[in-house]
């Protein structure tokens, strides 16, 4: 079992005396196996993005444990997390907003190499960057451009390239194609499927779009108001939904 979530809860307190509680994530239990594509379906405000941030260590859960290869990563120190980052990576919903507006495509892609010193010198670094960018299909003339000057599709490919440099074993995709056009979405989805096959990668795919999740995920969980209301193989859940929220989602297919 690659990743396990045990009774993970995240509560935000508000109000003058900090008495009003808001449970973004309530008692979530999840198991994701090696080389699986696991999908989480849910609308905005269902807690799916909060769950991602907890797994990524960007947010501390109020209670519960996140076991990665058996070890609880919520208790790790900064140094351990620095190492762990290499194996858990994430791509985001707004591709152009994932990069520093002040740095070019090349330096954005070279950033992980510099942080983790994966290359001895500049030439090797350039080689790695050009290699990975060819791999994901970003053309060479984009290198000196700025994030706001390239298209959504190119930016998402750059984001994927950047994560691949660190050779992660778990890639979390937080609605990567919801802002993209249909043809660009197809390109990104097929790229994800291809690298999942070749790089023995596990994908955690988050989306509110049932068609995309149905097309790409093996197992799915349906989230509503911070809770997992249903979980199982994609075909089972889609053919015989048990929870009425899942039924409502399926009936909302135009």
């Amino acid at each position, binding site marked *: 079992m690659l990743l396990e979530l045990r009774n993970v809860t995240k509560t935000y307190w508000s109000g003058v005396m900090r008495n009003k509680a808001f449970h973004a994530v309530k008692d979530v239990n999840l198991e994701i196996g090696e080389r699986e594509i696991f999908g989480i379906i849910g609308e905005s405000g269902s807690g799916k993005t909060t769950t991602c941030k907890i797994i990524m260590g960007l947010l501390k859960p109020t209670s519960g444990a996140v076991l990665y290869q058996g070890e609880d990563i919520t208790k790790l120190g900064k140094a351990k997390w620095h190492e762990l*980052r290499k194996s858990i990576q994430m791509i*985001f919903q707004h591709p152009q907003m*994932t990069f*520093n507006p002040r740095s070019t495509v090349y330096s954005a892609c070279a950033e*992980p190499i510099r*942080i983790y010193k994966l290359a001895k010198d500049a030439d090797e670094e350039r080689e790695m960057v050009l290699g990975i960018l060819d791999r994901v299909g970003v053309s060479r003339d984009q290198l000196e451009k700025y994030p*706001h000057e390239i298209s959504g599709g190119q930016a998402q490919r750059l*984001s994927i390239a950047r994560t691949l440099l660190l050779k992660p074993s778990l890639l979390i995709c937080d609605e990567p194609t919801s802002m993209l056009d249909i043809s660009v979405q197809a390109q990104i989805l097929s790229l994800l499927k291809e690298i999942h096959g070749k790089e023995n990668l596990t994908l955690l795919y988050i989306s509110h779009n049932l068609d995309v999740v149905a097309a790409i995920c093996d197992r799915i969980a349906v989230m509503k108001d911070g809770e997992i209301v249903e979980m199982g193989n994609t075909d089972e859940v889609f053919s015989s939904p048990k929870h009425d929220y899942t039924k409502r989602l399926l009936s909302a297919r135009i």
Partner: protein
Amino acid sequence: MKKRSALFHINRKNVLLILGLTLSALILLITIFSPLLETHNPTKMNLPNKLKAPSSENYFGTDALGRDVYSRILEGSRVSLGTAFVVVIFSAILGTAIGLFSGFIGGRTDMVCMRIVDIFLAFPTIVFVLAMTTFLPTNQLSLILAICCINWVRYARIARGEAVIIRNVEYIEAATAIGNSKTGILFRYFLPNTVSKILIMMSMDIGSIILYCASLSFLGLGTQPPSPAWGTMINEGRDYIRNAPWISIAPGIAVAVTALSFNMIGDGLRDALDPRMRESIQTE
């Protein structure tokens, strides 16, 4: 590959910026070479030819003690511009550091820093400097110190505002996810994205510091006679305003032109760096 940096997008249409840059470059050159350009010793009194109108001999005429106004303005330019640059650079660095830091950390430290900033902001600049200089010796250094103490606050407020905006943008999460350390994010993400706003403010600030400096020396603070400061020269000329206006008007124009050139740079920079100003094809 032409290095096209998004930080500076100077196209020829930006007249203000180019005019401002040339004018201020010219002024800087004059200030640096002012000792060579001076025709008379700025502090030597020469009572016989006092209150002489501008002539070929004394370009801007002479003042009540017969000293050459033109040379005194040149001498005064070093004091005035020197003060402005020192104050602006010091307060920009201190203010941006504190502002960025408090915006980046957030929470209680942010609240405390911002309250301290509010306290300083309660004082209009001139009032604060006047109060400060009462316990300091009256010379240019204490004037610089006083203005620096109040001026960094404006930068802190702008930098903190920018930092709070940046902190919520998605690329900060992506930066942490890719492995950046906290300090890495502060210097590689927060600083470059605030620097353009700070630059605009610095160029506008040089103009206003020159004006403050002149006003304060007009009120008698800063460098004491006989060494010339533009503000004191204008003040000295007040009693002879009727028959020898050039004593006050000449340094006044010097202050105005210097402030104008830096304000032009500020305005021009704002157009150059404001993303909305750049033409783009609206396809969608």
